[in-house]
């Protein structure tokens, strides 16, 4: 009942001519958390997907406790006690946590004795530091609870090596700390080893013992976290000394004209209950307004209602004309967005990268004359955007799911920000981006603002908000409960409002 020591040796994986992994070796010591760092597209996900049998490496060995293992399918990984928690949730939303756990078992009996299963489940989960309600439907859990439930599921399945691929990008910082803290304590007590993929240095520092940095598919640095400074890690990631961050362009005072004006907006959530309640706000030209709030307080519904993806009551006006999200209005008023989870919310997986880059302007010259598409121009545009935004992709005809998470994000950024933007609505635009790409995204958002665009930035990361915005609104239970200019914002006060309390 010991925790295995897992070693990857000389792993190489090609996708066509694209060398995703180049002779990578990795040792996960028993009972430790091993962090993987690297730029977007460095090969982190590919490496761990080899370890769970999802990809088959072209070369290399996997040794568990010194014994050579071949992993041909996720079943083999399962048998070795290796499991992965993905960035997106995999539980069935309409079933309770308990039901999800029981049916996730590999050998499901034909007849399920729910009573005894439940008893066993309570037994197993009682010993865990995680507290997840077992008899609640998954759809009713918050993001943090869902992520915990995913981990509980892995533990329930008897996994000894837990792989976490950017597990915290959908969590608030507090939730992330809690989840990772539990994982850390389970490794300390010798019940688990873990691989943690993250873009956040402070998480690596707090929750990992060892760290390996990948760059362009190769392992370039490995060692104990304590021996490496943040600067050393960053330098290893990008392969050159980190230049001191260029200071952001100076804040210009916003212009007087109101671009976005929302009056008495009401919208229902997927469950039919009111999610946005009588909400009003304004954003002026050249201004970034941030919306802070714990996820699930109506931000998603607010964005969808604004973009015409959700039924609503109330008025939304952009530059004085009413906006319902039709194609003509979008082009005329210049309303664009950076939705969260861009692979799902902003891309069409079964269309190519080039086509995805054309979603905004495929029906306008030069991509289209009359009704005839000009695919030559479409490819040309894609080449230009890919170069300009440094999107790393296997090819223009690749499907979006062949791109790494961060590169999907860049592709969407390229598509949205090269339009004539008058109003930009961004939801957690830096989830899953490496620090270079984060800076670049911030810079581009600021450029848009300085170019006179109005920006509404929804984020769960208070630091990110405070660093960028001119004004902060706090959203709680579907309403704006607090408003403050960025200069005089107090994190503690905002935190209280976020938690739904009135500040004293």
């Amino acid at each position, binding site marked *: 009942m010991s925790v295995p020591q897992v070693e990857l040796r000389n792993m190489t994986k090609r*996708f*066509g*001519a*694209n060398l995703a992994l180049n002779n990578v070796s990795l040792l996960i010591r028993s009972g430790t958390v091993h962090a993987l760092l690297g730029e977007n*597209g460095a090969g982190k996900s590919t490496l761990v997907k080899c370890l769970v049998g*999802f*990809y*088959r490496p072209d070369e290399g060995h996997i040794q568990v406790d010194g014994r050579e293992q071949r992993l041909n399918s996720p079943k083999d990984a399962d048998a070795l006690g290796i499991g992965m928690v993905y960035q997106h949730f995999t539980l069935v939303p309409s079933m309770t946590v308990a039901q999800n756990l029981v049916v996730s078992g590999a050998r499901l009996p034909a007849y399920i004795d729910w009573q005894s299963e439940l008893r066993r489940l309570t037994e197993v989960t009682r010993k865990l530091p995680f507290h997840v309600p077992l008899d609640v439907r998954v759809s009713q859990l918050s993001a943090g609870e869902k992520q915990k439930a995913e981990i509980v599921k892995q533990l329930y399945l008897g996994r000894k090596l837990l792989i976490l691929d950017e597990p915290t990008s959908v969590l608030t910082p507090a939730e992330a700390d809690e989840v990772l803290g539990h994982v850390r304590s389970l490794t300390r007590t010798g019940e688990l080893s873990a691989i943690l993929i993250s873009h956040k240095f402070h998480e690596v520092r707090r929750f990992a013992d060892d760290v390996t940095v990948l760059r*362009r598919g190769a392992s370039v640095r490995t060692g104990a976290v304590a021996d490496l400074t943040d600067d050393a890690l960053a330098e290893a990631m*990008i392969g050159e000394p980190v230049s001191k961050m260029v200071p952001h362009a100076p804040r210009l005072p916003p212009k007087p004209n109101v671009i976005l004006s929302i009056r008495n907006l009401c919208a229902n959530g997927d469950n039919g209950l009111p999610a946005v309640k009588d909400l009003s706000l304004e954003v002026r030209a050249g201004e970034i307004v941030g919306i802070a709030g714990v996820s699930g307080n109506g931000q998603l519904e607010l964005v969808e209602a604004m*973009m*015409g*993806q959700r039924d609503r009551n109330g008025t939304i006006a952009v530059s004085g004309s009413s906006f319902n*999200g*039709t*194609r*003509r*209005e*979008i082009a005329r008023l210049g309303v664009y*967005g950076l*939705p969260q989870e861009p692979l*799902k*919310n*902003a*891309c*069409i*997986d*079964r*269309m190519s990268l080039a*086509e995805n880059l054309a*979603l*905004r302007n*495929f*029906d306008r010259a030069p991509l*289209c004359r009359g*009704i*005839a*598409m000009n695919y030559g121009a479409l490819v040309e545009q894609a*080449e230009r955007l*890919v*170069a300009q935004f*440094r*999107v*790393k*992709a*296997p*090819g*223009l005809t690749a499907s979006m799911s062949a791109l790494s998470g961060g590169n999907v994000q860049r592709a969407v950024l390229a598509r949205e920000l090269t339009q004539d933007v008058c109003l930009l609505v961004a939801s957690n635009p830096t989830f899953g981006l490496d620090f*270079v790409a984060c800076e670049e995204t911030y810079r581009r958002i600021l450029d848009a603002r300085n170019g006179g665009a109005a920006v509404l930035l929804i984020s769960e990361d208070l630091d990110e908000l405070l660093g960028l915005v001119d004004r902060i609104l706090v959203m709680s239970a579907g309403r704006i409960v607090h408003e403050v200019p960025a200069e005089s914002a107090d994190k503690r006060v905002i935190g209280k409002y976020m938690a739904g309390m009135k500040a004293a």
Partner: protein
Amino acid sequence: MSSISGIEPVPPKPLVTAAQLSVALPVLAVLLASAIFAAFVALYGQNPATVFGLIVQGGFGSSFAWQDTLSRAAPLVLVGLAVAIPAQAGLVIIGGEGALVLGGLAGAVVTLPFAGAHAFPMQCLMLLAGALIGGLWFGLAGVLRQYRGVNETISSLLLSYIGIAVFHHLTEGMLRDPASLDKPSTHPIDPSYMLPTLPGVGVHAGLAVSLLLAIAVHVVLRYTRWGFALRVVGGSARVARMIGLAVNRWIIGASVVAGGMAGIAGAIEVAAVQGTANSSLIVGYGYSGILVAFLARHQPLAIVAVALLIGGMQASASLLQRRLGLPDATMLVFQGLIFVCVLVADAIAQQLRETTRR
């Protein structure tokens, strides 16, 4: 930084490309189905080789066989398109039979008030009426899906039964020609309004109509912004809404156009073959169209080729019955086998794609 940016070199060609796979799989499926079918006829005490020989002969062996095949292929192309167009938008609509018979009925009655008019406008009118009613019928399935959340596959199938029942009700009641005794029919259309025969081919002009429509659909889906928008809608309604496409309109529009195709098929059958609307319209073209579209992977031009194949098989059924005494349904069995094999091949292809990715 810039060295890692941009496009990676083009990867070397994999063993089979996706395009090759999409041709190879249906072909393999047909071959497999043929093997099973051979075993089936052998059970009946027939020599499979003879049977396949007769199928080829009955479908493609003589100019008469070709004429029969081509005139069957004409409606099959259209009902195939009726499945393929909604498939672009992510819909599985299988109610072609109902749209076809109602379209035929509309075509049969729409010219009755106009005696002695010029033929060409009347012929256009028949096809238009068929398209309109067929479009309405599929449009209903689209509306139910978008506004009531009813699964379009099931609703279109049920609507198909309703359509057939309405057809019987009207041809046996209100619209029945009293002179049609043993087979309730509508009043026959003016013989001068019948679609002409294509010179040199010996097949009615409906074949040309369906070929032109197939080419038109191909061009629209492949080379216009409408085709692009439809694929976006089919790929993700959520993203389509984000970029401002009116998803409901696109889905219902695609359904209406598709239903129009099936309706035209019915009108052609009436205006070129039957001369009236009667139960001879209900011979399962609508269902064969599902097979045609799936076998052709919803590609309009491939639909033409597959329609020829299936049309030929159906044309040979009577020869098999006459020469070998095989039951009428033999060809239906063959068609069914092909369909099952296509679905299985699709599932295998899915797995193959996943393993080659590894």
